């Protein structure tokens, strides 16, 4: 019976998957966050805002949230600063080199984040490759502390996230008219002026959408901060993990998770608003 149910029927498999794998767990986490947890009684099915009040009024959690968003922000800025010129170089390259180097940029996505992060752990440790090399060269006498620091987490996150930025900027660069660069050149602009006055402004929507992806992924990243930050440099996602699996305080963990979700959503929505208002009249 083809009719007005047909579209629903056709999207039913995808909808079922979406509901079963995303909406149901999310809804259950949401409900869980209002329950209470007793050390001897376990999860009690009461409903109040105690968990949220705990998190929002505790300086310990404030610090963790601030650190998480700080790491995400710095990672985003670094990704934009490195990824944008990188995408432009790729865009300007001869096609033979370009496909090879594009694979180099995107290749890391084919390897598990855990493996890549363990690679960074080997490099950054006190007896890691970098410190050993610097000490052997007698440039330093004691190892520089890089493991279990926010700096270490940022370095590894930038490496993990940069393909997303490159791809976003790359797509934006391909939408622009290549003749605009020639036009600027014929009007007397040098390479730097062309990049900053003509190419970058046109690629800006790509930089901004790439930033959005990188920021939200960094703010909710788990593997990298878990391995490189450990228990000493906690971020929100590792805190949630600890609440669930170490303290077994599931309701509190659920509340923290919900707060992270809402915070990231707020940042994304307001960022999107800002971008759209800025570019509506130019690019539409």
């Amino acid at each position: 019976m083809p009719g007005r149910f047909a579209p629903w029927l056709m999207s039913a498999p995808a909808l079922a998957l979406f509901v079963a794998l995303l909406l149901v767990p999310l809804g259950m986490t949401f409900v869980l966050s209002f329950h209470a947890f007793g050390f001897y009684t376990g999860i009690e099915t009461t409903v109040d805002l105690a968990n949220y009040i705990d998190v929002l009024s505790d300086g310990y959690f404030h610090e963790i949230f601030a650190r998480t968003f700080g790491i995400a922000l710095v990672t985003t800025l670094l990704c934009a600063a490195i990824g944008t010129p990188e995408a432009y170089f790729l865009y300007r390259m001869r096609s033979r080199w370009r496909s090879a180097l594009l694979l180099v940029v995107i290749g890391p996505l084919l390897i598990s984040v855990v493996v890549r992060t363990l690679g960074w752990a080997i490099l950054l440790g006190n007896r890691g490759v970098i410190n050993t090399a610097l000490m052997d060269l007698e440039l330093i006498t004691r190892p520089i502390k890089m493991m279990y620091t926010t700096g270490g987490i940022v370095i590894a996150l930038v490496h993990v996230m940069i393909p997303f930025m490159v791809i976003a900027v790359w797509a934006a660069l391909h939408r622009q008219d290549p003749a605009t660069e020639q036009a600027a050149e014929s009007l007397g602009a040098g390479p730097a002026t062309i990049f900053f006055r003509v190419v970058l402004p046109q690629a800006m929507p790509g930089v901004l959408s790439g930033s959005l992806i990188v920021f939200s992924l960094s703010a909710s990243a788990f593997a990298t901060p878990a391995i490189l930050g450990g228990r000493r440099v906690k971020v929100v996602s590792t805190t949630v993990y600890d609440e669930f699996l170490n303290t077994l305080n599931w309701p509190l963990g659920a509340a923290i998770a919900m707060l992270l979700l809402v915070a990231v959503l707020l940042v994304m929505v307001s960022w999107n608003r800002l971008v759209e208002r800025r570019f509506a009249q130019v690019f539409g």
Partner: protein
Amino acid sequence: MAFLELTGLTKRFGEVTAVEDFDLTVERGEFVSLLGPSGCGKTTTLQMIAGFEQPTAGSITLEGRDLVAVKARNRGIGIVFQSYALFPHMTVAQNVAFGLEMRKVAPAERQRRVEQALALVHLEALAGRYPRAMSGGQRQRVALARALVIEPEILLLDEPLSNLDAKLREEMQLELRGIQQRMGVTTILVTHDQTEAMALSDRVAVMHRGRLVQVADPLQAYENPLTDFVSSFLGKTNRLEGRVLERQSGGCRVAVGETTFEAPPPPDEAAAGGGRVIVSIRPEKVEFRPAGAGLVEGRAAARIFLGDHWLYQVETPLGVLLVIRQNAGPAEVETGGSVGLAWDPAQVRLLPYEAQA
């Protein structure tokens, strides 16, 4: 010394030769069109003048100065691109001001010259708009203003009108020609549209397969093409393969199939080719005669009304001939009617024989 001189200009991309041994001189203030089908090397030539491509061989000089060694950004050439290539993130005024900013013109002076340039193309009112919010014709004008405001030594136009609809294109042609003459700027237009080239230029340079075939003023190129290619590319023509029978004083007699008629003297190449020539007769030079009184006899197979003129297809022993007659009252011949065709022998053109491309 000519203003702009291209000598022996050649460009190869690997095995492919895009432009070969191209010679052209352009006088100050002249409007020259590079005309040819796509892939004839006209755009590559333009890119070399602009400095976006390095010639493989040959030289480009401007008032005797070598241009090849000069970077594109220092050549002082204004370019209007086919896509207009406006900066989408800048307003019209900012677009036009860009070249002046690069030249470090003082803000007050810059403002004055931007206003002047926008007035030239009648866009004063839209200075604050973004290109996105403009029509194709308006963007075209902005591109022109942006190229002219830097007072370029040479203005290069790369198929500037090809993205406009027919009516607007005609308007812009007249306007472009007017502006070019008022400013007196030396202009090179690249186009595949022969009517555009003829309408705008002082001289057309017809290119074919990377080579320059003929440079002449539009009327000369149309009336006295040097090759079969030029005669077919510029306007319509009846192209026939013929043979020179005998030379006469001031002309010769040619045969096309069984039919023979008078023609002007054949080209020198004809003798080497055993007298084979291409006979070209423009459709508008052919006249109707009563049946039996023409140089050839035929039957009007089709007639198309085109407003100011009629286009006839007439089946003759020579093949199907095109005839164009002015719309000056009722049609002279009905479809299916027998008719004679005649022409002034002086209007026939004999060209060196080439196999049809």
